[in-house]
């Protein structure tokens, strides 16, 4: 099992490699490269982190760090994951505050934003495909309802979730019961 310094460096590396999300790189480092976890253990840990609130990969770093080296491991993995990119993003924020109005930078950022939105739509589409293939009406209705409430009506997230999560949960539970009986 890795020491604290190794843990810090591993998380810093996967974080700095991770453009558009760190998960792929985390899996590669933890499962394939270092063999600190089997693919199954990784999937189980990630599933736990995914259904808890908060940024999934940050949760994963803490849970993984804790398994390896207790509280100190958690703190080290968390810091390794967030520290280096935080410095980069803050440097970019300072640059933007200073030069953000330059026409050249405006044009470049407009182009980047288009690509970034396109990427987000592609990720969403990929995640949506299995639900569409399963023809799961409960899931499709929940998805569309949340999209309209948040994206179109711009309702506040906490209120929408307080209704949507229990409703989706109840509908999923009832659908499963009906299949089972």
């Amino acid at each position, binding site marked *: 099992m890795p020491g604290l310094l190794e843990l810090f460096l591993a998380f810093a590396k996967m*974080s700095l490699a*991770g*453009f*558009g*999300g*760190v998960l792929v790189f985390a899996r590669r480092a933890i499962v394939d490269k270092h063999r600190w976890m089997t693919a199954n253990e990784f999937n*189980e*840990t990630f599933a*736990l982190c*995914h259904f*808890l*609130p*908060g*940024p999934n*990969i*940050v949760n994963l*770093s*803490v*849970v993984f760090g804790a398994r390896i080296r207790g509280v100190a491991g*958690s703190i080290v993995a*968390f810091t390794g*994951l*967030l520290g280096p*990119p*935080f410095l980069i*993003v*803050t440097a*970019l*924020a*300072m640059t933007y*505050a200073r030069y*953000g109005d330059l026409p050249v930078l405006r*044009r*470049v950022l407009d182009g*980047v*934003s*288009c*690509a*970034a*939105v*396109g*990427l*987000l739509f*592609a990720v*969403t589409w990929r*995640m949506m495909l299995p639900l569409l293939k399963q023809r799961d009406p409960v*899931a*499709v209705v*929940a998805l569309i309802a*949340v*999209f309209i409430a*948040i*994206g179109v009506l*711009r309702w506040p*997230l906490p209120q929408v*979730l307080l209704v949507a*999560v229990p409703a*989706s949960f109840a509908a*999923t539970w009832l659908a*499963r019961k009906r299949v089972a009986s």
Partner: protein
Amino acid sequence: MMGAGALFTIALTFGWLSLFAVGGAAAAIPEIHRIAVDLNHWMTDPQFADAYAISQLSPGPNVLIVSLVGYQVAGIAGSLVAMVSMCAPTAALAYGVSRLLHRAGSSPWPALIQKALVPVSIGLMAASGLIVAVAADGSRAAAVLTLIAAVVAAITRVNPIWLLLAGGALGFVGFL
């Protein structure tokens, strides 16, 4: 807005928001936008679209967009407070839960909760895309570029950074 009051507001805002961030940072974008642009007027729509672009251009977890919002409100301290308050409370929660559920494999509840949450978080991500697209308020060329990026990303496994850089290059030469 400056000083301890601003930092306190940032901490409270993002700490509270993090508790509702199901499905990760991408799903929290609409609420971050609502808070930063609509409610508090910390930034304008174009500035928010820029912040999203910059957060995607930099490596690391997508949640770092909150640092850009924090910076806009209260400089470097704001940037740090935003990130820590968005990440630390839920990280502590994850730590606690993982200690409790040493092995969650046998219980049907996690699978059921996950099945119920997946469509909710995908709906949130779709809303994120729409909100950033509207905030950017681009031309017809921007819509075309967005569509091309979406199709390329959906059918190939190209590293996202190349698409972002290609988008930036097209913007640079005046495509938009």
